[in-house]
């Protein structure tokens, strides 16, 4: 695995194939836990840990799991790791456990993890699978932090729990209530689509210019 590929995978995970903002996977937990940056980051880190471990184990076992029962096998593997992460969070970060609540065990049914197991880990060697889990997990965490950043500043006027807005700021409570979650996530996905289409256009125009120059050169060569 060379360096370029890792960079490409990282870019894919964070931007082009972001599990939340582009692939729209695992939206339940995204909407539910992004009321503060700490929660968003905690959830992202927990899901990343589960994703990396499950990708590794599924990749190691990919030749032993029969095709017919693979989904059930994946779910058992994933829920095992989720239980471990849950117990660890309960033991060392009780405050986070309280604020994430039922959404830690619900990582089991996060479509992103099952999707990576099915699409990547079941077909690739352990090391690329770990890197895939890591990059996708980072993309997921980045999306969660971005959404919770906006929601926490608008809805509570704080960041990491500290007051950062000027005194006259009236927090827009709606942003941390469920409706705000839906609307802010929708707007972010729209922004992402806009950026993608802009980049797509740029690439298209660049390609067009490139071919135009090439044809000019060819024409000149022909003239000579």
């Amino acid at each position: 695995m060379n360096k370029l590929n890792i960079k490409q995978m990282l870019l894919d995970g964070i931007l082009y194939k972001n599990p939340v903002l582009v692939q729209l996977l695992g939206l339940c937990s995204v909407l539910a836990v992004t009321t503060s940056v700490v929660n968003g980051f905690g959830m992202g880190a927990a899901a990343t840990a589960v994703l990396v471990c499950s990708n590794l184990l599924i990749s190691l076992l990919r030749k032993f799991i029969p095709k017919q029962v693979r989904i059930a096998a994946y779910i058992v593997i994933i829920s095992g790791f989720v239980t471990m992460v849950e117990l660890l969070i309960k033991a060392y970060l009780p405050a986070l456990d309280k604020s994430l609540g039922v959404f830690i065990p619900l990582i089991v049914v996060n479509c992103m993890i099952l999707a990576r197991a099915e699409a990547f880990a079941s077909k690739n060697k352990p090391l690329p699978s770990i890197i895939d889990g890591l990059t996708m997990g980072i993309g997921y965490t980045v999306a969660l932090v971005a959404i919770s950043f906006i929601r926490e500043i608008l809805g509570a006027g704080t960041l990491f729990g500290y007051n950062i807005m000027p005194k006259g700021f009236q927090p827009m409570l709606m942003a941390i209530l469920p409706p705000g979650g839906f609307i802010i996530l929708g707007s972010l996905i729209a922004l992402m689509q806009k950026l993608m289409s802009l980049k797509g256009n740029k690439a298209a125009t660049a390609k067009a210019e490139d071919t135009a120059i090439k044809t000019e050169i060819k024409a000149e060569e022909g003239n000579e």
Partner: protein
Amino acid sequence: MFTEILVLMLSAVLIENFIFSRFMGCCPFLGVSEKPDTALGMGCAVIFVMTLASAACNLVYNFILVPFNLEYLYTIAFILVIAALVQFIEMFLRKAVPSLYNALGIYLPLITTNCAVLGAVILNMQKYSDVAKGESLLFSVLFGFFAAVGFTLAIVIFAGVRARMVYSDPPKSFRGMPLALIAAGLIAMAFSGFSGTNLG
């Protein structure tokens, strides 16, 4: 008893609606809500599975996990029970009630990884772990049923809204999912009106 059930019903269906205030089951909510008919089919399948899963998981928890001190394995146990139950329901319906199978069949496999079902079961476990076994079974089943009714209500309303959105002409980058999410946000705003209700 009767008032308790009534309070449970109102809070599960409206005030703490599974989608609009708990965010559980968003994947099918956004995925199968293009048409009101399919949304209703999905909703009925969820009602069916969630009620049965609440009963099955309550029994497994009270009679297997607790006696053997295995409570910490609840995530694995519940997801396996749900997966097995869905498979079993699918086989049973195909043999016994083919008409119902034709209506619900395609939605059933999707329900295994629907976080609404696992979420309802876990909430039940947390809420009713201290009460007597018979009572906890009754309330778990009722909660599962009414929460699924709330899910169905939400997905059918949303499908109605989306059916109208087809005719709108939003900016290009808002087409598809962003607009659907914002519409869901507006419906959630209407539902948040219930959150002030005090049921004592």
